[in-house]
């Protein structure tokens, strides 16, 4: 008669069974997400089969699914990547420098810190409305007739329309505001990782604050900042909603500034000055447009477009990971 012991043992066994079941459920949940990712990628690749070819990459959109291509979207997205990076890096790094190096406990720092976490939660479509009102229409202060400001940069004449209208520059500014919180936080983390002994050593040699930042802190933090920026930009490139708001054209048979191959940059330098102020389309907009068309063939075209977009993202992320990996090894404090 060892009944008490067997009750204990059977209950213990039941508890362990319960635990194993729970562990299995948790594991299944984790693999659920990965399973969906695999199905998604496999499904898109399957749908795109045969549609993603060289002619798809070198042609404009078309009313015939077989002839539709992504050239305009690809160049539009490249211009957006360029300008969003150009705008967001100085401002984002500047803000991070101010918050980390200059004012590490002031009222503005606390205000900005709270503000950044709230901005990160604002839906991207709200940024789209902001961009539409501020950059595209400029509050309507210029009336219905757009003005054109001409500027000569010596070798190239730039024509700036005011308000900007539905141009590359308006979209890039909007995307900059969208990713700025991410860039600032990434840059702050990179700056924080620079040990303070570097700064003190620089001050001890008589350097001013800016000299210390310019020659010591920034070079040391650069890889981290760069990685954060690339990741932020790659997020911006997949954003569709703000661009739809801004009204990036969906049927476009030209590339910004008529630059549609790298050689055009040399043969058509004036196009470089026109491109930022040209109307455009972008990869995600083009995909959205194809998805919304009723003809079922466009589903395959959209899938091919999605593969191109995913590849652009993959390249950007690959660059970021390589940079991080490479500099992590080199720097030893």
């Amino acid at each position, binding site marked *: 008669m060892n009944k008490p012991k067997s009750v204990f043992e059977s209950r213990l066994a039941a*508890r362990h069974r319960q635990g194993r079941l729970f562990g299995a459920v948790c594991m299944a949940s*984790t693999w659920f997400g990965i399973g969906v990712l695999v199905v*998604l990628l496999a*499904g898109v690749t399957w749908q795109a089969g045969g549609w993603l070819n060289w002619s798809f990459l070198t042609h404009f959109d078309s009313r015939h699914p077989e002839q539709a291509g992504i050239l305009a979207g690809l160049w539009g997205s490249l211009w957006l990547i360029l300008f969003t990076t150009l705008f967001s890096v100085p401002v984002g790094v*500047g803000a991070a420098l101010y918050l980390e190096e200059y004012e590490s406990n002031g009222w503005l720092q606390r205000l900005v810190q709270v503000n950044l976490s709230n901005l990160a939660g604002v*839906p991207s479509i709200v940024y789209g409305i902001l961009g539409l009102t501020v950059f595209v229409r400029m509050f309507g202060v210029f009336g219905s007739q757009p003005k054109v400001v001409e500027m000569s940069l010596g070798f190239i004449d730039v024509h700036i329309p005011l308000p900007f209208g539905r141009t590359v520059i308006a979209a890039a500014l909007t995307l900059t505001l969208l990713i700025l919180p991410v860039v600032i936080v990434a840059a702050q983390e990179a700056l924080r990782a620079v040990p303070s002994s570097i700064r003190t050593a620089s001050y001890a040699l008589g350097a*001013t604050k800016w000299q210390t930042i310019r020659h010591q802190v920034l070079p040391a933090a650069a890889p981290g900042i760069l990685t954060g920026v690339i990741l932020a930009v790659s997020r911006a490139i*997949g954003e569709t909603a703000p661009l739809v*708001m801004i009204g990036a054209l969906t049927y476009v048979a030209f590339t910004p500034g008529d630059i549609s191959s790298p050689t055009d940059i040399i043969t058509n330098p004036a196009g470089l000055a026109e491109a930022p102020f040209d109307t455009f389309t972008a990869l995600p907009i083009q995909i959205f447009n194809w998805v919304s068309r009723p003809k079922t063939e466009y589903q395959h075209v959209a899938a091919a477009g999605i593969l191109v977009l995913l590849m652009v993202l993959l390249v950007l992320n690959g660059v970021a990971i390589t940079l991080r990996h490479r500099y992590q090894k080199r720097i030893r404090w």
Partner: protein
Amino acid sequence: MASANVVENPGVQSDPHLLLRRFSLARAKEQAIYCSLFLCALLSVVTTLGIIIVLVNEAVLAVGPNAAFFQEVSLWEFFTDTRWTPQFADKHFGVLPLLAGTFLIAGIAALIALPIGLASAIYLCEYAAPRTRDFVKPLLEILAGVPTVVYGYFALVFVTPYLLKPIFQDLLGFDVGVFNAASAGIVVGVMILPMVSSLSEDALRAVPRGLREAGYALGSTKFDVSVKIVLPAASSGIMASFLLAISRAVGETMAVSIAAGMTPSLTLNPFRSVQTMTSYIVNVSLGDTPAGSVQYQSLYAIALTLFCITLAMNILSQVVLSRYREVYE
């Protein structure tokens, strides 16, 4: 005077005035740099103010040529009318159908993402071997990095025809539309899953080891420790992650516009087409609505509502995090 200077700076050989001037030039440069960096930091505050000013101006106050939305449509009508028909001759501006659509989809997404995300957080934090974790976490990050337009495509081309139609239409006899709230909700759930999982995992990880070991010392199984000790201890962080994820689902735009359709309807039927606040905004911006019309101004009213809802959820999550946090030494 000169002799006094020499006494004060015995090491300085050059003309003290020159030194002073150089010094002040450097000062000016430092000051200029300080100011420009200050402006950069200020820009993020200006962005927030810009959003609020633009939305409030066009929706409520109307500084400028066009009348504001709420000057033409009363707040009472906006929040109580059950029809949203801005493009018909008989215009009604009741936001309830859009709110219902938004929260129907966010609810379906939460139903999927919260339990699965929490379970995977528990697995990653308590059960998984470090090698599995190193393998799984980057994959979940990829899931989070897939553009939302791709999720919309996935919902329309795969989830509805290959998952919802066979199960709910052929087996259970529901009428599943091409555009439906369920497919949008499912993909939005998948989209916010990595967010729930990684934020909850951070919260679980912050629970000190001592609590777990005390549990084991009292004879608890791994299940007891995970569910009855670690989970309650991390509850504030988990709640905060839930709120952030739902707020993200409420603001999600492209997947919803593609998969859920454009029919504003006050329904809880997940197999019908609904319109959310975000997809209404997209719908109007795709058309040729003239700037200044009531329909155009309604964009700002909807955006303001959306902004307030997501902001409230974000602030609530911060409050939950700071007020109900269990503090350990």
